[in-house]
């Protein structure tokens, strides 16, 4: 098996993800890869020496970020775009994560959910993660007032989620999609620092717990997370 894998890597038939096992955005990609049963290798980036700011990296990812997918010469960045590509390319294997592309309304409802995740959920959980994890990691003190504001806004947004998840099982309808999975990396951090907000929204919390317990997410966190 190891020899075959080595050959696959050498011949670039195995997907490469430039990233970091513990990074939230890398794990957002890993969870999709595990759901679809797609083999991949993580190519670590040397953050300490500023490799993410090197010309070599910037020519692949112009914002100096990770993850970046390399699929036999095709380069793609943005964890959600990578997840969508994997889900579409491997549509016929693993968990179904996208609606049928011909069903325009199902696609529209997926896109509605995707916007909600990126516009309504992410800024607040991302903000909580910034104040409580990323800034302290960089030696910047938590701004407690900003943290409180993020938690407050997060609670308001979850009122919207509660309405949606009282009508249907997942965010885009009654079937799981990639969008549900995207909530996991920063949502996990928000749950650690603002658990009361989760508890105050029972339908949301039930949906959340079911996602957290998926084996793909547990596996994505195997090499560590930021909690």
């Amino acid at each position, binding site marked *: 098996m190891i020899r075959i894998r080595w050959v696959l890597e050498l011949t670039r038939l195995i997907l490469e993800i430039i990233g970091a096992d513990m990074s939230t955005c890398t794990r957002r990609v890993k969870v999709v890869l595990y759901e679809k049963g797609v083999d991949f290798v993580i190519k670590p980036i040397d953050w300490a020496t500023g490799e993410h700011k090197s010309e070599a990296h910037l020519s692949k990812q112009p914002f100096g970020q990770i993850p970046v997918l390399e699929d036999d010469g095709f380069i793609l960045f943005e964890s959600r775009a990578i997840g969508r590509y994997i889900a*579409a390319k491997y549509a016929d294997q693993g968990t179904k994560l996208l609606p049928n592309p011909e069903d325009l309304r199902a696609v529209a409802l997926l896109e509605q959910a995707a916007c909600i995740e990126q*516009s309504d959920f992410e800024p607040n959980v991302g903000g909580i993660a910034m104040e409580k994890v990323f800034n302290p990691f960089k030696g910047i003190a938590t701004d407690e007032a900003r943290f409180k504001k993020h938690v407050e806004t997060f609670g308001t947004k979850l009122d919207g989620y509660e309405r949606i998840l009282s009508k249907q099982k997942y965010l885009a309808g009654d079937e799981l999609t990639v969008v549900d999975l995207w909530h996991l990396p920063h949502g996990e951090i928000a749950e650690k620092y603002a658990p009361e907000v989760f508890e105050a929204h029972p339908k949301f919390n039930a949906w959340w717990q079911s996602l957290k317990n998926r084996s793909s997410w547990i596996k994505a966190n195997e090499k560590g997370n930021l909690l």
Partner: protein
Amino acid sequence: MVLIIIGHPVSTCTRRVKTALYEKGVEFNLQVIDWPGGEHRTEAHLQKQPFGQVPVLIEEDGFILYESRAIGRYIAAKYANQGTKLLPDPSDLKAVALFEQAASVELADFDPPASGLAYEKIIKPRTGLTTDEKRVQTLNQTLNSKLDGYERILSKHKYLAGEELTLVDLFHLPYAATTELLAPELYESHPKVHAWYKELKERPSWKKANEGL
């Protein structure tokens, strides 16, 4: 019965949808929401849009869709065979992936600092709140550094997802316009971005979406 858009003429997100509808030549009726009267917070509205926002699309058979970018995508797909081509061919997985990459960049990298600046310098004064000048400085710095990334992208190809215009370029217009107003020096220091924006803002669809404002 034509398509209904619940929204407001001045709303950035409503204008984002109007631009897409004009590009595709799709007729619609704008049902103006009573924002000062708090209509967006009524149960009737929350049933349609659970976050109390606009715009909302309502089709003839009662299909409801919200989030301006989702509405734009739906219109572009449903009316793929008329008006301007705004989406890649769905069977071209790599073209679709590059479109999604650009779409994610707009939401993750451009919208937060650009809309943040608009909130601090336009919305807050209008609603009697005080601009946080320190936050404005941070947002300016963030937007400047993000535009460095955009400059790299637009030095390689004409539009954000490749050589052809897509919906994602148009998604930028509302806050690209406020950025021109609030931080024009950011365009001066990013010539490719500036050229891309200058061309987009001349599109008749955008001009029409802003008529009367």
